């Protein structure tokens, strides 16, 4: 027991390499978490992050096949935009289904997850993106063009931190500013509290919903593109699946605040990174970390309910 925990901690923070690995794992979680924060603050229940992460990676991969020789920085910028666009369009699609047909975004985003997952399976499994010469069993694309790999900040090999981490930190600051300081953020928060009043007061709430879904999906898409071009370099479903759902947990545990999501992402990134080392050292199944993720979420939700009970008791005094 003690050995498992100590190896978990060593694996997460024990060396520069371990620390970089933790930050690298935190990067996509943070991006997805921020997208989730923005949607959930508006009480728009986008839970299609899994599909949006994949869509971002797929769109960026597709772009990488098409772009010709470009200066390196411009090429990377194109891939970033493609990642944003892939996730954003998928989010937007769920938004349009809601504004046009009143489809619950909870249903549509989950269903779109399946469509995207199976589309990727087709593309990699005998489809045009299958690694040529490989057997069907690999389910992965050939490596991306090495010229298009995202710049590395620190480290090398398995434990390196790509520049997506900077993007994620920037996105954290921008999300916080957006939500707390801008008129759009005001509208997002107001939508979460009372969309009817917002509609009476001159805001086009259908448009607002589309914007929120677009931004939320785009951040998830960027996470997918970053994983592909910064870390794994091959398009492969297994490396991407799970990021979306962990990102939702990150947003919830972070109290639906960008700064909170950052702390939560670092925490869960460390857990994920340490889990691998823990398995090697103590034979503890890494799956336990996923279970821990669930437990942490449950505890945080319980704590949130507990604080709300407290507030209700006090606010009775004002009634």
């Amino acid at each position: 027991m003690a050995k498992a925990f100590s190896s978990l901690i060593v694996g997460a923070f024990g060396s520069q390499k371990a620390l970089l690995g933790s930050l690298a794992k935190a990067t996509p979680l943070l991006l997805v978490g921020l997208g989730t924060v923005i949607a959930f603050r508006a009480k728009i229940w986008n839970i299609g992050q899994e599909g949006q992460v994949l869509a971002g990676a797929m769109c960026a991969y597709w772009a990488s096949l098409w772009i010709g020789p470009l200066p390196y920085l411009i090429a990377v910028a194109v891939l970033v935009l493609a990642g944003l666009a892939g996730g954003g369009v998928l989010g937007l699609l769920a938004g349009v289904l809601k504004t046009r047909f009143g489809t619950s975004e909870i249903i549509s985003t989950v269903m779109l997850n399946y469509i995207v997952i199976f589309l990727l399976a087709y593309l990699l499994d005998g489809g045009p993106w299958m690694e040529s010469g490989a057997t069907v069993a690999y389910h992965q694309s050939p490596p991306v063009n090495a010229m298009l790999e995202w710049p590395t900040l620190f480290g090398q090999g398995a434990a390196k931190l790509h520049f997506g981490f900077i993007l994620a930190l920037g996105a954290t600051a921008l999300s916080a500013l957006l939500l707390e300081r801008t008129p759009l953020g005001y509208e997002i928060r107001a939508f979460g509290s009372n969309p009817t009043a917002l509609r009476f007061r001159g805001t086009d709430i259908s448009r607002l919903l589309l914007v929120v879904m677009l931004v939320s999906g785009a951040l998830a898409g960027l996470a997918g593109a970053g994983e592909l071009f910064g870390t794994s370099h091959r398009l492969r479903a297994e490396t991407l699946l799970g990021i979306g759902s962990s990102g939702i947990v990150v947003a919830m545990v972070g109290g639906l605040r960008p700064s909170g999501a950052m702390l939560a992402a670092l925490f869960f990134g460390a857990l994920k990174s340490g889990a691998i080392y823990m398995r090697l050292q103590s034979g503890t199944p890494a799956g336990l970390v996923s279970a821990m993720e669930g437990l942490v979420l449950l505890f945080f939700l319980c704590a949130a309910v507990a604080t709300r009970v407290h507030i209700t008791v006090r606010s009775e005094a004002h009634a």
Partner: protein
Amino acid sequence: MENLLSVQNLTKRFGAVTANDNVDLDVRKGEIHCLFGENGAGKSTLSACLYGYYRADSGVIRFKAADALRLGIGMVHQHFVLVENFTVLENIIVGSPDLGILLSKSAARRKVEELCLRCGIELDLDREIWQLSVGEQQWVEILKALYFGAELLILDEPTAVLTPQQSDQLFVILDGMRRQGLSIILISHKLREVMQSDRVTILRKGKVVATVETSTTTAEAITALMVGHKVTKRVSDRSVTPGREVLVVDRAVAIGEWGEEVLCDVNFTIAENEILGLAGVAGNGQKELFEVLMGVRTLSSGGFHLNGEAIVAPTSREMLDRGVGLVPDDRFREGLIPEFGIAENLVLGWQRKPEYRRGPFLDRGKINALAAHKIDEFRIVAASADLPVERLSGGNAQRVILAREFLHARGLLLANQPTRGLDVAASEFVYEKILEKRAEGFAVLLASEELDDLLRLCDRIAVIFKGKIMGIVQPGETTLLELGMMMAGNASNLGGQVNDFSSKALRQ
């Protein structure tokens, strides 16, 4: 006379706030006893303690001279607790312990029919709730309480949702119950109803100010006791005459969610320096009319002009930009963001206005300064400008809306039930502000269920019934009774049946 209920030194605190402070109250057998006071005076808390919803912190409640509670006290809430698609009978007997596993309705039916007869209630027990008028639904609530053996009935603001005629009918029924020896506690802040009770207990800031026999006092004396000083009721300055037309509504027709006509051929105009009253029972198209004028509901035919310009397919953005101010009837649903503080709510609808921005960001400093100023000007009672408005009282929340609308509106003010749920002093504050706007040259559309108020404030009064304007009348030439008849859908059939209560009401 025998006391059915006696309360001694009842105190109920919520945190630092004392809602009921050493309250004494006795209710005699066979009397209508009114609890009268402003919002927050402690009427509802007291009745909730009697009904057993709250437990009093200290004090004694004796019912039938015993320490027994719960037995024989019935409560009719402001918002009915009925199952829409059950029949009247089913609603009355639901939850009754002596029904057994197999519903035996025939015995229950006999009992309910007998109750109806005793109280003079005429009601078809087999109709479903949704088919009943609001007044009839209230009778079902009363029957339910009586069926369960209530000897003391507590009615919380029972007439808030009724027409004057329905209110009169209710008082006929209450009178019948009183003669049967039942006791009634009536919570109200309407003077007309207070004067129909036997005794009235006046509460102010949680304390009992006085208990008086209604027959030995006057409405003015009771009001003075309630607020602690004399209230001057403002009237419209008739020397100011309306100017050019601001709003012209022309043959407006709107269709509701179920394909029904919610507005049928509505025509009226409002001019500068004019208040047009809109009288009607809630749910007769007032809400839809305000929504149309605010740009959140589309007309199926007809239209309206603002300052001489035809308004085609407006959005709420356009109407706000054209200077229309709206005080909605459901203030927490349509007028405020409950989780936002006063400061943020003051710029709701104007959050993108350059005035409140610095570059791409909201100018917090400026908005907070504005809030501090408006809290002062509108005498909003709040711990801080960041306190979520959902924690404000109805009166203070309404002041936030008024502050916002009066700051941004130019030329036209739409006020739907602006004094709903407010006490006398808070209502007068709202009216004072509306009259100020009239003097400034605003055109005002004022919908209210308080007909006395419409009569003293408005330049003209339009009466709406089932989406139709039944007529537009001059306050000086119209009586309360005529308005009531029109509100019930009779455009011309005046002078019909007048019962004791309405004539008594008219004399005041």
